[in-house]
């Protein structure tokens, strides 16, 4: 992950240096794609197995920008890999295949692929893959802002002790802002689910719905959460598992960014704690923080350059007024936060608030709101005005604004929920950190889970050699096959083994060494009746090579007696009659 978006190590303009992971079992294509992507000035990593690819991705979640994967791979279905990557890492994935059938492409789209390329792939098709990275980032930011909006509306509903005209006014603005965002999304969003009515109609996550969702998540426990469980708890009939899954993904992202920014803020803000409170320094400190935070967040892409102008904008409004410095920019962009501030008791000594404001940027804004709240009506009306203006201005800088502003309402949300009354500056500080820990604890399990999965897979791999294990039958087969490979001379052993594992054979056909595959085509009864050599021999091209050894007199002598034994069993006889003697 690039640490500083502003001083980029790459000298070429974006999209040079895009980090691509290519997964394909065809080594020829792997080499061709690698060369093509290098010619596009991308950073390429190649992988022959899906499992390896997942390991690489889980190892460092932010090491790659985009994944290109083949559809047909021996160890794992490309669509499955696509799902994993989408859920765990939320990276854009491009599928590719030599087969361009509509059904396959449809499947790709349904599983969440950004694009589906047909082999042979032209270099010009690869040149444009950066658009998927950019698009995803933009959508992410939008979704997160919507989430924030919903969270704050939720908060205001929860903490609605004071009602005033100004309050209602901002409330309406909030919903209108949210609606506008959603409208934007619906307009610009090119998801297939949007226009066509085939699979999924776009789900609008209303505040109530989101509230139910969060309640369900908290009920289950964040680390044990899964889309199915949430769906069941929420008890909303028209909601599908996919809707919940994607929303959960966004929510996780949102929380992880919250936590990330908390970490950065605590590290940055800690030093300033002892400063004597003054409006100007507070304001400037706030600016400093926001610059740093934006830097850190923008590091994900090279869209950092626009952040500069955003900061400038922040500065200007601040210079206007004393108390409202920090408030202006922040409230302008996210007026909802102003509402949220209502709940904590605004009658707090200013000095303590200011001190607190030094240590954390967002609590600083929160604190400012607290004072702000004391002169409530006037400020609200004021905030209502510039908000729309600044909102417009800020729109193009969506990306960056989203990054830095995101965390505060979230924090407040946590605070509101748990600590409605006590002095916010002090306790909210600790609550923030607690929440951080909670958040980090909650978020970590997801990663641990993934790692566990990865380690399970790797341990299975170590036992399985090249047989990628997906089901238990595969494991059983492999272990069972070892006797065969080591003891091919004994026909009886093989035949006896065939009896027991015939069903497994049939199911595990694909992953088996070709020599074994003919066995899978045998039927049960046929196998049983022709145990000693005959059936076995007649069915296998391979075994025919070994036939001369078996067809010596000794074996032939054995055969009749055994057959006699078989024959005089009435049931076997009848089966043989039916099966073979067509007369």
């Amino acid at each position, binding site marked *: 992950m690039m640490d500083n978006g502003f001083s980029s190590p790459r000298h070429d303009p974006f999209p040079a240096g895009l980090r691509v992971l290519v997964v394909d079992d065809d080594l020829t294509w792997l080499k061709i794609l690698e060369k093509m992507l290098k010619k596009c000035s991308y950073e390429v990593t190649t992988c022959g197995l899906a499992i390896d690819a997942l390991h690489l991705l889980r190892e460092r979640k932010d090491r790659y920008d985009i994944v290109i994967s083949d559809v047909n791979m021996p160890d794992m279905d490309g669509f499955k890999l696509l799902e994993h990557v989408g859920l765990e890492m939320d990276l854009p994935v491009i599928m590719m295949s030599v087969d361009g059938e509509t059904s396959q492409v449809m499947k790709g789209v349904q599983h969440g692929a950004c694009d589906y390329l047909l082999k*042979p792939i032209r270099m010009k098709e690869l040149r444009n893959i950066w658009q998927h990275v950019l698009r995803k980032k933009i959508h992410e930011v939008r979704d997160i802002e919507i989430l924030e909006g919903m969270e704050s509306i939720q908060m205001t509903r929860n903490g609605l002790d004071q009602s005033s005209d100004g309050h209602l006014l901002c409330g309406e603005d909030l919903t209108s802002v949210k609606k506008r965002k959603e409208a934007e999304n619906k307009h610009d969003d090119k998801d297939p689910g949007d226009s066509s009515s085939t699979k999924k109609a776009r789900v609008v996550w209303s505040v109530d719905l989101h509230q139910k969702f969060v309640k369900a998540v908290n009920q289950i426990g964040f680390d044990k959460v899964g889309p199915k469980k949430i769906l069941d708890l929420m008890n909303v009939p028209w909601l599908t598992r996919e809707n919940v899954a994607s929303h959960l993904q966004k929510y996780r992202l949102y929380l992880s960014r919250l936590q990330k920014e908390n970490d950065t803020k605590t590290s940055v803000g800690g030093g300033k704690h002892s400063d004597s409170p003054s409006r100007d320094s507070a304001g400037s400190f706030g600016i400093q923080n926001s610059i740093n935070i934006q830097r850190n967040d923008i590091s994900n892409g090279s869209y950092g350059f626009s952040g500069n102008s955003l900061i400038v904008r922040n500065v200007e409004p601040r210079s206007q007024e004393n108390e409202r410095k920090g408030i202006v920019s922040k409230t302008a962009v996210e007026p909802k936060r102003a509402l949220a501030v209502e709940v904590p008791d605004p009658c707090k000594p200013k000095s303590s608030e200011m001190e607190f404001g030094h240590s954390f940027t967002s609590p600083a804004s929160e604190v400012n709101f607290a004072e702000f709240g004391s002169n409530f009506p006037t400020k609200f009306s004021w905030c209502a005005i510039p908000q729309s203006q600044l909102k417009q201005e800020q729109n193009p800088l969506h990306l960056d604004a989203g990054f830095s502003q995101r965390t505060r309402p979230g924090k407040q949300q946590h605070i509101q929920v748990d600590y409605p009354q006590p002095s916010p500056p002090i306790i909210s500080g600790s609550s923030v950190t607690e929440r951080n820990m909670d958040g980090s604890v909650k978020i970590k399990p997801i990663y641990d889970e993934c790692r566990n999965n990865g380690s399970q897979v790797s341990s299975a791999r170590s036992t399985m050699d090249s047989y990628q294990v997906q089901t238990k039958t595969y494991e059983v087969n492999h272990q069972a096959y070892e006797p065969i490979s080591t003891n091919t001379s004994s026909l009886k052993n093989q035949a006896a083994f065939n009896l027991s594992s015939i069903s497994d054979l049939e199911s595990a056909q694909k992953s088996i060494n070709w020599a074994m595959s003919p066995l899978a085509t045998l039927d049960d009864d*046929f196998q049983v009746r022709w145990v000693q050599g005959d059936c076995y021999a007649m069915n296998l091209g391979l075994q025919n090579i070994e036939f001369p050894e078996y067809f010596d007199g000794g074996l032939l002598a054995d055969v009749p007696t055994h057959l006699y034994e078989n024959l005089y069993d009435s049931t076997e006889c009848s089966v043989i009659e039916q099966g073979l003697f067509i007369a």
Partner: protein
Amino acid sequence: MERNNQLHRQVILSRQSLFDQGFLDEQFLQLEELQDDANPNFVEEIVTLHYRDSARLILSIEQALSVENFPFLNPKLLFSYLFYCLVQQVKRQLWCLKVASFLCLCRERNPLDFNKLDSLMHQFKGSSSSIGAKKVKAECTLFREFCSAGNGEGCIRTFQQLKKEYATLKKKLEAYFQLARQAGPAQTACRPK
């Protein structure tokens, strides 16, 4: 110089004929474009890689196709069956019928696994597309159509044709690369006297 010029002309002609006769398509051009100073033998390396993959796949397909054929032709199988009949003491005149039915049964009990064949051919087609082997790819598509139709005869016939095309292309490409190596890099030919 004259010899060199002649060689170069030959190289150009040979290359052009590969395209004109439909052996290669635009993908081969893409490979040539990718060849640069960092990878001066890129095209040949890719073609070599392709041979390795495709040879393995052809073998697998052959084996998958041949399983059915053996029981028909294997006298030993026939012998074992006949012996069994002897032991069973069935009527002699029915032996022929039994043999025929037995052979039919073999086919019934060991039908071609079209799914597997399709999957293998899919991989082979992917590999062929990597170098732009036009005619070979066309046979692959045909083969897959027969697979989805469940036409074993068609599959076997197409596969024979595919192997022919594959061998032809391999020969032509090898001749072309050898010629190109002989002729040397184009710059030397243009060196002024």
